[in-house]
């Protein structure tokens, strides 16, 4: 009998429209997951990839599917006023609920199977070459098996928890809230524990890792480890099942509670009997007024909303979410570094993900509640007979919804202010005002659209699905997967980026305003359409006679089109935009069209004269430049290939030689056939100019920041380039196959270096002379010494000249900063900073001076006379080194202070690292195309070790080693790539963390003497203008300096040996 009842329950569930919709959605979602997570073709059907897909599917979809179905299935009787009918049956409430819960589990498992089938379909559709039938069958079985292994215990746990919630509250809101919190909490836990499903650079604490191993309800923490512990997996699954059954048992016993205990008993008073007189009806005439109705409706709806206990509970939970997110990390810049957290730091913790996501879900819920409330309460019969103006009803709903949104944002701000108060952090009310405005305006437009959609589409499920689709397009990669790359196809998104303490929101505020206006015009248009389409009691659908409204509709539509056009113009002003597919096609065409020029001799840029005029207020920079090109080869140059950046073409370019020009505008390539060949040693000039603007309509690129408070431009990629650039070739095997490009040989860096044509090695170094103009009060920086400074036409001019060639990677900066200077052996070291960020300046100068002094002594002199470190906004990399010019983020470099967690300052360490790049990157390295980043990044990490030990003590150095060890082990725990040597490795955790461990291990045995001697030897042989050094050259030099340690050196650097084999020998604590 129980079996028949369960089958009946499943059949009942399957009859529901929600199930008809979820079933194909499950398959579709699985299909997009199967297609969307990119991997090499060879790994498409591999076990790790299948696991990754199923893990992502369960993590993203299972909580939502469960809470949607649970909200329906578990509340079916009460939601349709059948509770008393079901109560009066022989089957007890507890048993009925148990059957409902079981039916729900079965339906979810069925949906999981459909989703796994969808994943397989997605894989098949992305495969260039399908496995045979048996292979496909096995892959399918594996997917289903994984889905069941991961999904069944999770489903049982979710359903049991929702069953318990159902018996704790008559409102399904608790279930929906539970689903949302569950989803968010797993994302946070997965991120904090270093799950490969979540991009995070955090180093997880050991206890969290262990806990997740046992309690991860999907079991992914164990399954996705490099070597899954099957016993731990078994324990995990059993624990989850035990928890599920325990909670289900509790829910079962609570099921007997009578719901009528929640409702107050109705009471009656006896009717008052008295003698009556005839009814007197003598009312004066009334005239319904739209505005009065609007205010009455809005007021009542708001009052009704705020009187619901669930709203207060929701608010309280949200406060805790904000507190939980903000409090622990408010004063944290990075591990080992404290920040005097500002309001902006707090706001950044929740403004960019939690608030939009949670706020959107709240808007969806409340818009549905406002729209269906009258229907649900059976009040529509009375309401629809009232002389309500359609222009009162919908705007009243919008105002009520926006009032709720405002309350939500105010509550968020309040919770954050409490956090700040607890942390004694200065509270900036203006920042919170801006948060409410900038987060609230797009959300408000979204809410308005929700109201309009739900007013027009009578079917509740269809309306909710359409609204949900908008959210999916907004918050998931679905838009990208569908090829919808244009920013206006990401509903209600704006280009606004997280503000920092340096430039605030200024970078993208104009873009934010433009996009927000667009969304608001769209919302107003849809709302007006919904008002006009209101056909309550009318024969025809639209109020065609309402001419003013129709005119308003037309006006809004034209304004919307105009605004959209303006946005497109604004996007185009920043430069040509290409979606990823078009960009890949363009790069493929570039390689096919110009690869042959890699074999032809090209002149080098011997000297660059540049004039850069910054206009920060207008967010514009004008550049005019001249390249002095020389032929350094033994043969003549007959053809000159000059490339420009495809996104921002040059305004002007000219060659001071007669030549036939072929210009490919699409690829930005100019081919000059010289009338007279450029003979060896000869030179010619190339003049160019360009104007760059940045209006904030797009996220800021890393190397072009044009704002009023900080302007920075890197020459590459905006300046012309000479010759063919192999760096532009497509690296992905799959893309190369797709575009019929030849396969790139998969070989180690050592082999590639050994088999290369050494004649193509060479530095791209030039002399530079630069004139920069800025408004008065601005500093400017670039490569070279400041030789002249003057004012003219209310602008500040400065001229910089390099005394010797430097690597041709120019950067130009203009900002109203303060300067602090120190002189060291003829070199001027300076730090440019915001006046309020003075604390770390002296320490930064110490780091620069100590590093310059040390490396000048042990390797070679600093290649320049000025070294400037500039405080930059917190966007892009935290630190970046150009020749003679360093940029370090404001938060980590200037605001952060050392805490007790680490015995060294991260700001000091970072300044050392970036200074070291003047040798490793701009003296050694970047001269050989086939080389890796070992000589650049890994050697800079070595310098960190040396400087910390030398100037901060051995404990500090060992602390860095321990920190990098933890980072390495976390990343490596999920790394399934083939093992490479350190020299060949290209992943960040190898280049930084593993490199630190390798050098620490080496130093432990041989000390610094042979390492420094090897670097000195490298300098003698490969210092400019000698041919550049490679990573292998350094390793060979190291072996020559410490021949007895050859085995160790090769193990650490040039052999693909697991780090675990030698890591135990590495000391991380002072004895």
């Amino acid at each position, binding site marked *: 009998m129980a079996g028949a009842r369960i089958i009946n329950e499943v059949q009942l569930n399957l009859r529901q429209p929600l199930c008809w919709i979820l079933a194909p959605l499950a398959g579709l979602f699985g299909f997009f997951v199967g297609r969307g997570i990119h991997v090499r073709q060879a790994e498409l059907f591999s076990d790790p990839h299948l696991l990754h897909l199923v893990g992502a599917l369960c993590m993203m979809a299972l909580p939502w599917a469960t809470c949607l179905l649970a909200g329906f299935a578990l509340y079916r009787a009460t939601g349709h006023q059948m509770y008393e009918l079901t109560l009066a049956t022989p089957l007890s409430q507890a048993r009925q609920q148990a059957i409902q819960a079981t039916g729900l589990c079965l339906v979810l498992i069925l949906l999981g199977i459909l989703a796994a089938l969808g994943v397989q379909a997605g894989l098949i559709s992305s495969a260039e070459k399908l496995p045979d039938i048996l292979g496909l069958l096995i892959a399918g079985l594996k997917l289903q098996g994984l889905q069941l292994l991961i999904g069944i215990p999770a489903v049982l746990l979710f359903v049991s928890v929702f069953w318990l919630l159902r018996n704790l509250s008559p409102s399904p809101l608790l279930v929906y809230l539970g689903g949302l919190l569950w989803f968010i909490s797993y994302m946070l836990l997965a991120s904090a524990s270093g799950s490969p499903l979540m991009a995070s650079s955090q180093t997880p604490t050991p206890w969290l890792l262990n806990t997740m191993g046992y309690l991860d309800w999907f079991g992914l923490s164990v399954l996705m480890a490099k070597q899954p512990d099957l016993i731990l997996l078994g324990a995990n699954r059993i624990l989850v099942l035990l928890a599920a059954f325990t909670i289900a048992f509790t829910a079962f016993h609570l099921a007997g509670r009578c719901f009528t205990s929640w409702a107050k008993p109705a009471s009656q*008073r006896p009717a008052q009997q008295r003698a009556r007189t005839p009814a007197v*009806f003598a009312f004066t005439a009334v005239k319904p007024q739209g505005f009065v109705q609007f205010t009455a409706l809005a007021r009542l709806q708001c009052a009704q909303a705020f009187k619901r206990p669930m709203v207060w509970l929701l608010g309280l939970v949200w406060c805790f979410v904000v507190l939980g997110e903000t409090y622990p990390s408010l004063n944290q810049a990075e591990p080992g570094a404290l920040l005097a957290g500002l309001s902006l730091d707090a706001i950044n913790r929740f403004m960019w993900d939690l608030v939009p996501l949670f706020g959107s879900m709240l808007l969806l819920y409340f818009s549905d509640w406002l729209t269906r*409330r009258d229907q649900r*309460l059976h009040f529509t019969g009375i309401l629809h007979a009232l002389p309500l103006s359609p222009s009162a009803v919908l705007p009243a709903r919008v105002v009520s919804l926006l009032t709720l949104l405002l309350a939500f944002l105010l509550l968020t701000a309040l919770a954050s202010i409490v956090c700040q108060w607890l942390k004694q952090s200065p509270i900036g009310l203006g920042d919170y005002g801006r948060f409410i405005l900038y987060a609230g305006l797009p959300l408000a437009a979204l809410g308005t659209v929700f109201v309009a959609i739900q007013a027009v589409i009578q079917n509740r499920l269809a309306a909710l699905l359409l609204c949900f689709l908008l959210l999916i397009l907004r918050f998931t990669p679905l838009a990208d997967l569908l090829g919808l790359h244009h920013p206006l196809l990401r509903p209600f998104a704006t280009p606004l980026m997280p503000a920092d303490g340096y430039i605030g929101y200024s970078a993208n505020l104009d873009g934010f305003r433009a996009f927000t206006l667009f969304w608001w015009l769209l919302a107003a248009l849809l709302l007006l359409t919904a008002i006009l389409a209101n056909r*309550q*009691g009318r024969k025809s659908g639209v109020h065609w006679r309402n001419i003013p409204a129709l005119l308003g509709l037309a006006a809004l539509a034209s304004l919307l089109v105009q605004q959209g056009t303006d946005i497109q113009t604004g996007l185009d002003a920043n430069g040509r935009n290409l979606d990823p597919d078009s960009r890949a096609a363009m790069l493929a065409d570039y390689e096919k069209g110009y690869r042959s020029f890699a074999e032809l001799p090209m002149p080098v840029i011997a000297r660059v004269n540049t004039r850069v005029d910054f206009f920060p207020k207008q967010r514009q920079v004008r550049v005019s430049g001249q390249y002095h090109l020389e032929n350094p080869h033994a043969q003549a140059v007959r053809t000159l290939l000059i490339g420009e950046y495809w996104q921002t073409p040059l305004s002007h370019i000219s060659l001071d030689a007669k030549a036939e020009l072929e210009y490919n505008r699409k690829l930005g390539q100019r081919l000059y056939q010289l009338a007279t060949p450029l003979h060896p040693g000869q030179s010619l000039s190339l003049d160019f100019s360009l104007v760059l603007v940045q209006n904030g309509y797009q996220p800021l690129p890393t190397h072009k920041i044009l704002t009023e408070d900080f302007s920075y431009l890197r020459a590459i990629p905006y300046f012309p380039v000479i010759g063919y650039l192999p760096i532009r070739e497509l690296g992905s095997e799959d893309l190369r196959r797709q575009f019929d490009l030849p396969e790139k040989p998969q070989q180690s860096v050592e082999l590639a270096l050994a088999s290369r044509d050494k004649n193509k090695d060479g530095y791209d170094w030039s002399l530079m002379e630069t004139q920069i103009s800025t408004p008065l009060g601005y500093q400017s920086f670039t490569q070279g010494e400041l030789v002249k400074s003057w004012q003219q036409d209310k602008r500040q001019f400065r001229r910089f000249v390099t005394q010797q060639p430097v690597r041709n990677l120019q950067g130009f900066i203009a900002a109203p900063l303060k300067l602090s200077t120190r002189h060291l052996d003829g070199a001027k070291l300076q730090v440019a900073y915001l006046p309020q960020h003075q604390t770390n300046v002296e320490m930064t100068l110490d780091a620069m001076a100590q590093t310059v002094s040390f490396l000048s002594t042990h390797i070679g002199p600093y290649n320049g006379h000025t070294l400037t470190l500039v405080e930059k906004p917190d966007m892009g990399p935290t630190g970046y080194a150009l020749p003679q010019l360093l940029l370090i983020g404001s938060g980590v470099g200037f605001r952060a202070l050392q805490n007790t967690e680490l015995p060294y300052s991260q700001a000091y360490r970072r300044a050392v690292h970036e200074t070291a790049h003047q040798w490793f990157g701009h003296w050694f390295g970047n001269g050989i195309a086939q080389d890796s980043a070992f000589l650049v990044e890994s050697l800079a990490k070595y310098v960190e070790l040396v400087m910390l030990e030398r100037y901060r003590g051995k404990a500090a150095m060992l602390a860095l080693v321990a920190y990098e060890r933890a980072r390495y082990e976390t990343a490596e725990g999920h790394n399934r790539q083939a093992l490479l040597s350190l020299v060949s490795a290209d992943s960040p955790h190898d280049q930084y963390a593993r490199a630190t461990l390798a050098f620490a291990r080496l130093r432990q045995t041989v000390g610094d003497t042979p390492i420094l001697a090897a670097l000195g030897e490298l300098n003698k042989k490969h210092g400019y203008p000698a041919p550049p050094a490679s990573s292998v050259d350094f390793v060979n030099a190291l072996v020559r300096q410490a021949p007895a340690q050859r085995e160790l050196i090769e193990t650490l650097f040039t052999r693909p040996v697991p780090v675990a084999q030698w890591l135990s020998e590495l000391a991380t604590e002072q004895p």
Partner: protein
Amino acid sequence: MLQLHNIHKTYRDGTQALKNISLQLGTGMLGLLGPNGAGKSSLMRTIATIQAPDSGHILFEGRDVGQEPHLLRSRLGYLPQHFGVYPHISCYALLEHLAMLKGVKDKPQRRRQIDQVLALTNLTGHATRQPSHFSGGLLQRFGVAQALLGNPQILIFDEPTEGLDPAERLRLHQLLHDIAQTRLVLFSTHIVEDIEHLAGHTALLLGGAIVASGHTRALFSNLDGKIWQGPPKDPLPCNTQLLSQRLHYGRPVVRLFSEQCPAAEFEPVPPSLQDRYFLTLQKHTGEIA
């Protein structure tokens, strides 16, 4: 005041709710009578402009309310058969809200009206309570109260006495009678006696169509001398039509239609609207069969 011309309405599931309804309504009370599914509520909802007819016109003071529903709604008081109320709000506050929506924007006038309707429906003692906690009868009285707000020239009550105790039912009857002196009151009920006693005019609906309408008394006056009541007989006497079988002081009795006395046990009784109702029902059901 109100004219209905050839109103048709078919729902999406194919149910033909209203078929060619035409009525002319003026001041006074019109009762709508019919079995379940006859179209009474559909007709009321259509007149109240809650739903639009598929074809036909409703004219109010000569103007088509299909194009201007607000014209009628501003002069309408409507009580649906089933309705709910908002939670967390007192009876008084909800009436005030509805009064504002109806256009009673002057606060003192609004308060006067609310006090008046509360008194008329005997809800004054419950003004501060939440209608979401009312019993069925109290809620029904609330529904009547809200319908009386504003300046209703037309009042439509769908099953207004449902849930009311006998005293309140009589009270409501008197109220409806008083209102109907100067307004059009349209109401439906399953209690035929209510229509017989209250409504000056009656329309009998069957299968979406009006099968009989006119002065209430005139609808059954032609049955004088043709209605007989007596004990149940099996088989029925010849040339008789069984109208109803009921219990009378615990004993079953039947009412028959016959041109002459069907049997000795039967005695003539005054005809009622219910007799007319059953007779018409049988005639049309037989036609359909």
